[in-house]
């Protein structure tokens, strides 16, 4: 059992969110104007803070204060677009900065603060929590970038409202100054004009007087037809610094007097240092100290390379644990037994129960059965985990790239028993996040080492450490049964799985199958688990959409056409599916040795359909092309959405083709990219993304591209090879031989 424990969102809410008398998870919210609390932390001389999301300085520069981290998803630019458009600001005047790790920027403040008044917290704001997040949540401090939520929550409920409110305040200021009606004023390109008199004033000129008004929580927002910046391609602000080497990632922090640390944590999670001989390591020139953190050993030296070399000289014995015998195979067996037993003895928990399940199976002409499996996965961010910390008495500073900087602040404070007020997080760019950088583990380690040695310390994990001490996407097994009538009608869908986390709807299928029973049980392991791009959708997208193709075959239907048939009451789904199919040329003849597969996935408020083309060459699968269609409601940044689809697809493709974290003797085996391969240039398919602006509520983009690639891929592989891939990764299959895994149709 992980020391992070299990969690449930219901428990989480009952534990502090809803029961908190309207004050959501302890963040001290004030209705109306909250400027006073943050004004000192985000303004410098000459800045007037209009409200907490935007400031204007005397030079006319408009700065959006973005409470989300940048890990490549481009959300900061998209959020600035939303604010600037509602404000009628000139785009070239608009910059942004990341909000400080302050309670007033906690995501929950957004839901319950001046933006929404007393409205309920939107579902999307309930974070994609895992055990690690839960610890943070228990500390009631959340400033998370995750859940593909930046644009659809902060943007929709925060930035647009803030921009519109700012515009109204500026208009009020001009109306007062000129003694004219507000209705006679117009705004454009950061200038207010009174047409009647020809008077104009810039936003910069009006900023001081506008700041005296309280922002309206319900300003008038633009109609889509009035958008000037939203929905247009703008270049991302962070890109120039990322092509000339000047972008500062956490690992690039420079602190005077800093030493460097390399670390090795207990190979088996839950184990601890039993004995330690550091005498040989300390002989190496440059080594200053060897620090025992209890569950890890760190070497501190004048340079990272020296520290890393010396770490190999430290002789550590680790305590035995009850997990020392755990292996990939033992966990698979455990998962299989737990889901089988839960289904048999009725102890599973239902997600969905629809229709007369028993009679649907009793009346079936064919019953289809299959078990699907996915392995544990590492995030393998390009930038290994690291943090730089300095501890002086009761004060601590941490330089790090965090998906939840506010949570890091409280976690570091808790770990070092410091007042959170005395902990400062210096947020940096993240060299990949994907969920991994929501966990403060390396920041806590760095702070503990820095306190021990008395100088600032930059802690860098080796690639092997990063692989072996990740917060993993769990390994999951999922068992399916489907009932099909003699005429091909799909009568029932039965699914039992383990590892239910977030989002709750991940295993739910959109298809109109009358009888459905989707249920889950628990099967905990000692490996820590956490959010991995698209979280539970990363496994259920594969499971449900791959098994659906088996059902289609049993029903004698084309997989695309059966999806269409069972989505006839869901026009939005159909349109996305049809667009991908049409652009990919679905229905054209497929040559021998080639395959084409399709998938549809709704996640994080967006609909994504993918069609994948593969070629079988000498027993190996090559992925030629991916056609992707997405309806995210409205694409604020169309090229940003396309980039996220490309990125999500390659991330999911790496996992589907190669990704597997294996365990022997309780310890993770992978160390680098030779035993944890990822997609490289020569394996990467051509990707085409087509966007639909349906005008529905804005959905996410960072994650929805990931879940659908694995099933579309394996469905294509089936056509090319005749093998149903029911267990990822694909690389373990030898397609020179046709594999029949389970009995299939009974």
């Amino acid at each position, binding site marked *: 059992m992980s020391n992070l424990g299990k969690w449930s969102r219901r428990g989480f809410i009952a534990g502090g969110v809803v029961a908190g008398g309207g004050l959501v998870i302890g963040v001290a919210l004030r209705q109306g104007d909250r400027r006073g609390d943050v004004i000192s932390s985000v303004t410098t001389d000459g800045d007037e803070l209009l409200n907490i999301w935007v400031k204007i300085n005397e030079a006319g520069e408009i700065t959006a204060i973005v409470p989300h981290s940048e*890990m*490549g998803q*481009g959300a900061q630019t998209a959020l600035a677009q939303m604010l600037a458009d509602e404000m009628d600001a000139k785009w070239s005047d608009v910059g942004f900065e990341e909000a400080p790790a302050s309670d007033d920027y906690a995501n929950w403040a957004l839901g319950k603060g001046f933006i929404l008044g007393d409205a309920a917290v939107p579902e999307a704001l309930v974070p994609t929590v895992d055990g690690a997040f839960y610890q943070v949540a228990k500390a009631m401090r959340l400033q998370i970038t995750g859940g593909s939520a930046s644009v659809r929550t902060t943007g929709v409920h925060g930035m647009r409202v803030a921009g519109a409110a700012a515009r109204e305040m500026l208009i009020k200021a001009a109306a007062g100054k000129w003694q004219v009606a507000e209705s006679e004023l117009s705004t454009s390109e950061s200038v207010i004009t009174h047409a009647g008199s020809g008077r104009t004033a810039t936003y910069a000129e009006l900023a001081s007087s506008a700041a005296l008004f309280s922002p309206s929580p319900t300003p008038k927002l633009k109609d889509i037809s009035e958008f000037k910046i939203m*929905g247009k391609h703008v270049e991302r602000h*962070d*890109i*120039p610094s990322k*092509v*000339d*080497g*000047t972008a500062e*990632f956490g*690992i*690039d922090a*420079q602190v005077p007097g800093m030493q*460097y640390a390399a670390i090795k944590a207990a190979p088996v999670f839950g184990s601890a240092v039993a004995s330690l001989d550091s005498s040989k390591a300390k002989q190496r*020139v440059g080594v200053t100290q060897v620090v025992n953190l209890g569950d890890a050993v760190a070497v501190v030296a004048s*340079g*990272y*390379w*020296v520290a*890393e070399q010396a770490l190999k000289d430290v002789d550590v014995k680790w305590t035995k644990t009850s997990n020392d015998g755990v292996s990939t195979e033992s966990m698979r067996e455990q998962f299989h037994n737990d889901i089988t037993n839960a289904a048999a003895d009725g102890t599973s928990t239902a997600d969905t129960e629809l229709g007369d399940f028993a009679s649907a199976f009793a009346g079936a002409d064919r019953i289809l059965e299959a078990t699907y499996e996915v392995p544990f996965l590492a995030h*393998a*961010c*390009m*930038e*290994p985990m690291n943090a730089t910390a300095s501890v002086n008495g009761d004060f601590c500073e941490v330089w790090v790239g965090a998906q939840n900087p506010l949570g890091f602040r409280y976690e570091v404070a808790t770990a070092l028993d410091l007042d959170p007020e005395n902990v400062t997080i210096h947020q940096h*760019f*993240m*060299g*990949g*996040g994907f969920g991994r950088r929501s966990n403060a583990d390396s920041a806590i380690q760095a702070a503990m080492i820095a306190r021990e040695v008395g100088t600032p310390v930059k802690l860098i994990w080796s*690639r092997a450490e990063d692989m072996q001490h990740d917060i993993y996407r769990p390994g999951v097994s999922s068992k399916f049964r489907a009932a099909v009538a003699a005429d091909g009608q799909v009568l029932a869908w039965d699914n039992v799985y383990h590892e239910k986390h977030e989002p709750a709807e991940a295993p739910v299928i959109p298809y109109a199958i009358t009888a459905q029973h989707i249920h889950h049980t628990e099967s905990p392991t000692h490996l820590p688990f956490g959010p991995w791009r698209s979280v539970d959708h990363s496994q259920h997208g594969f499971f449900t959409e791959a098994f659906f193709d088996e059902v289609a075959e049993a029903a004698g239907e084309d997989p695309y056409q059966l999806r269409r048939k069972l989505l006839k009451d869901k026009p*939005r789904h159909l349109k996305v599916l049809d667009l991908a199919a049409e652009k990919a040329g679905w229905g054209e003849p497929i040559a021998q040795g080639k395959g084409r597969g399709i998938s549809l996935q709704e996640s994080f408020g967006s609909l994504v359909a993918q069609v994948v083309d593969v070629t079988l060459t000498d027993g190996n699968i090559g992925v030629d092309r991916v056609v992707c269609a997405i*309806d995210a409601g409205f*694409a604020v940044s*169309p*090229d940003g959405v*396309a*980039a996220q689809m*490309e*990125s999500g697809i*390659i*991330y999911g493709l*790496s996992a589907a083709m190669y990704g597997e974290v294996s365990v022997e003797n309780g310890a993770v085996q992978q160390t*680098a*990219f*030779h035993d944890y391969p990822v*997609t*490289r*240039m*020569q394996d*990467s398919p*051509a*990707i085409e993304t087509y*966007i*639909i*602006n*349906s*005008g529905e509520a804005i959905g996410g983009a960072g994650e929805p591209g990931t879940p659908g690639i694995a099933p579309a891929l394996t469905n294509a592989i089936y056509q090319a090879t005749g093998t149903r891939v029911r267990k990822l990764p694909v690389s373990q299959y030898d397609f020179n031989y046709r594999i029949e895994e389970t009995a299939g149709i009974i």
Partner: protein
Amino acid sequence: MITFTLNGSEQSLDIDSNTPLLWALRENLQLTGTKFGCGVAQCGACTVHLNGQAIRSCVTPLAAAQGSAVTTIEGLASTEGAMHPVQEAWVAEQVPQCGYCQSGQIMSAVALLEQNSNPDDAAINAAMSGNICRCGMYGRIRKAIKRAAGESVVGVFDPKANNPQEA
């Protein structure tokens, strides 16, 4: 004492000459644009040029730089500060996401283009396969290389020209 030319200037370092060039650049010379990704030459994040060749600085000892010319991402811009054409192409194609691997990607691409001014897809695969991008921007990298080579990218799928459809 190891003496070499770094981004066009003479440089001397009196440290353990076994130190990988990566750490000498990052820690002793504060050139942090070159990144640590794996330490075992599998990911390419640490790619720099040694006498014009793309090398993995994480497994190249400082001693190997003796008397040689080393170029890092910080040395690509012109002396007037103008971006290198490959960097400009990277901006035009909006390549980076997290950006961490991009110094290495760009250094590999520049070395490729210096040896092959018009690389085809196979040449791009061969030169770039040692550089991992976990954000998966391979398609944009390929296009940016072709753009920098002056090759027409007409006919290649362009997400920026692909305007959203109204429902």
